């Protein structure tokens, strides 16, 4: 009987759908939300939520620039957002429909200013840093007790890397993350885009290239957790996920995440509404729903990334708000830098350089 009832309910829902129920199409990063929030939104608003995921900014940007994506809410990273705004891909938000905006955190608002001045087009969803994930046991075995776990020396000093190559090192396959790190290592401005600085950064990367097992932007989570590699330069939340997976597996692997003490890249994933969104009204409702303090806290508690919502902080679990790797203290926060997007010509130089670093051609 139960089955028949749910069957009937499903049929009714289908009928309702056919009759043109309101829909909102959301395109977010994979593994980036507590999925029970999606049901909650549907129940609260009566809108059908169609939730779809992607795993690279480039993919999202290509869809945005091609136009007609059919999505109502998308989540590009700050630098990508800025470029897509100037391409005319997003519409201005209507503040009157976003009362929960008062929950947002001014510190993060300020930091995202360069990408979206005044927050006219976007709201912050999550943010994080790019840094070093290390298998404590293997790294100290290779480099000794005083191994520089929180310094770029670990990954950019060829002497260290030569020893670490025995146990395996992964770098992100993302020049926009690796080049600023190499520039920071050299003491240069991480946001430099002139050819001279980029060439110096290339030299740093080429010197350690022989010791890098792989350039990849997601495999390191598993590889770190399984103990296949001992060091990865990657995104904070991903490395924390690896840490938790290793802890759950009780395989003796202990992972730590450290933002480099020389300075770490801070990035922001922003929610925005495409210019040609079929349902901007529903999109605003979704943004407002996400900015609710408890909803945002639920998302952060689930994915272990910090958010830009001040009011949500009282609802965060202690292992999220209390973890300096997720919510850095004042001092570390001051040490985080942001970068601006590359222009088309600079981007070409960068991509070409990256191919040269990776493939030797």
């Amino acid at each position: 009987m139960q089955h028949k009832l749910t069957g009937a309910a499903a049929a009714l829902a289908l009928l309702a759908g056919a009759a043109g129920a309101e829909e909102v199409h959301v395109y977010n990063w994979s593994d980036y939300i507590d999925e029970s929030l999606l049901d909650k939104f549907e129940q609260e608003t009566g809108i059908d939520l169609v939730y779809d995921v992607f795993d690279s900014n480039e993919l999202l940007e290509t869809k945005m620039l091609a136009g007609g994506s059919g999505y109502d809410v998308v989540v590009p990273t700050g630098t990508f957002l800025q470029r897509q705004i100037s391409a005319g891909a997003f519409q201005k938000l209507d503040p009157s429909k976003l009362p929960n905006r008062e929950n947002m955190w001014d510190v993060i608002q300020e930091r995202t200013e360069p990408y979206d001045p005044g927050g006219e087009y976007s709201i912050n969803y999550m943010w994080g840093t790019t840094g070093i994930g290390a298998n404590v046991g293997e790294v100290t075995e290779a480099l000794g007790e005083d191994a520089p776990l929180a310094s770029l020396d670990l990954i950019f000093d060829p002497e260290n890397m030569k020893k670490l190559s025995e146990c395996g090192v992964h770098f992100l396959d993302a020049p926009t993350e690796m080049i600023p790190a190499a520039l920071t290592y050299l003491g240069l401005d991480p946001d430099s885009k002139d050819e001279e600085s980029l060439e110096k950064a290339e030299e740093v990367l080429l010197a350690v290239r022989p010791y890098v097992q792989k350039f990849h932007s997601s495999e390191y989570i598993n590889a770190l957790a399984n103990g296949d590699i001992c060091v990865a330069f990657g995104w904070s939340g991903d490395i924390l996920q690896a840490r938790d997976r290793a802890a759950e597996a009780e395989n003796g692997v202990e992972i730590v995440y450290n933002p480099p003490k020389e300075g770490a890249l801070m990035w922001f994933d922003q929610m925005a509404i495409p210019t040609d969104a079929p349902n901007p009204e529903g999109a605003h409702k979704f943004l407002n729903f996400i900015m609710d303090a408890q909803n945002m806290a639920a998302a952060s508690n689930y994915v272990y990334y910090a958010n830009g919502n001040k009011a949500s902080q009282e609802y965060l679990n202690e292992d999220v708000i209390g973890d300096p790797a997720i919510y850095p203290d004042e001092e570390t926060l001051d040490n985080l830098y942001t970068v601006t997007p590359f222009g088309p010509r600079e981007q070409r130089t960068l991509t070409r350089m990256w191919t040269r670093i990776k493939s030797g051609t």
Partner: protein
Amino acid sequence: MRRFALIAIPYAWLLALFLVPFLIVLKISLSDITLAIPPYEPTLDLSAGWEGLKTFFSGLDFENFTFLTTDDLYWKAYLSSLRIGAISTLITLCVGYPIAYGMAQSAPEWRPTLLMLVILPFWTSFLIRVYSWMGILSTEGVLNQFLLWTGLISEPLTILNTPTAVYIGIVYTYLPFMILPIYSALEKLDISLLEAAEDLGCSRLKAFWLVTIPLSRPGIIAGCFLVFIPAIGEFVIPSLLGGSRTLMIGKVLWEEFFNNRDWPVASAVAIILLLILIVPIILFQRNEQKQREAEG
């Protein structure tokens, strides 16, 4: 009228599925990159009438094609793709021919089953099959475990993320495309021709070389084209199984399109790839036709 309709159908097909997409890509390859939706200019504005058409055509140039000659990355990637395509086609042929031959030689009641077995892998998603190769070839993978267990090797082999893995992936994926046309050619082979050859003093091996191989030539050629052409533009297999040192034009295209957001240069790369493939094929077919006419 009927005759006209019969000719029109394949031409309409060619027009809709080849020529129109080709012209769109060609048009983009002659445009310039810009930050907008879509990310190139000029776009054709028909509402502006004659003026619109004029500004459109004056905006086109071959800049993107000349750009491709300024960097050795492109021709190196083309050459490397051609080499990988050619070697994999050769391996696929060597593996596929005996299988097709065996199928054609088997008892007729077995053939539908064997045919089914060749097609069976297509029932699983291509992506899943390539992923499972990652599981087989990795350092802790099934293959290495097995070889270590047999004692053939004492250190695990590094196969994943090398060109070898790319060859294995391509040969595995495209094998059915080689087997099927060769099988269909061999199946039609008239046995009495082989008997005649043996009656006239040929050894079995010689009869195979002089009769079977030449008669299955159309199947071999079709199979080689079906493997070689998609293998050259392959993107998924090298990115999943190959290391960062495996340079292929599909990857270069992806980078131009997604990382550089440069649709015009990406289109120019695609047009050159098409020319590299289509010109030899046309020449080859011409030659075939001439030969056939000379024989006929």
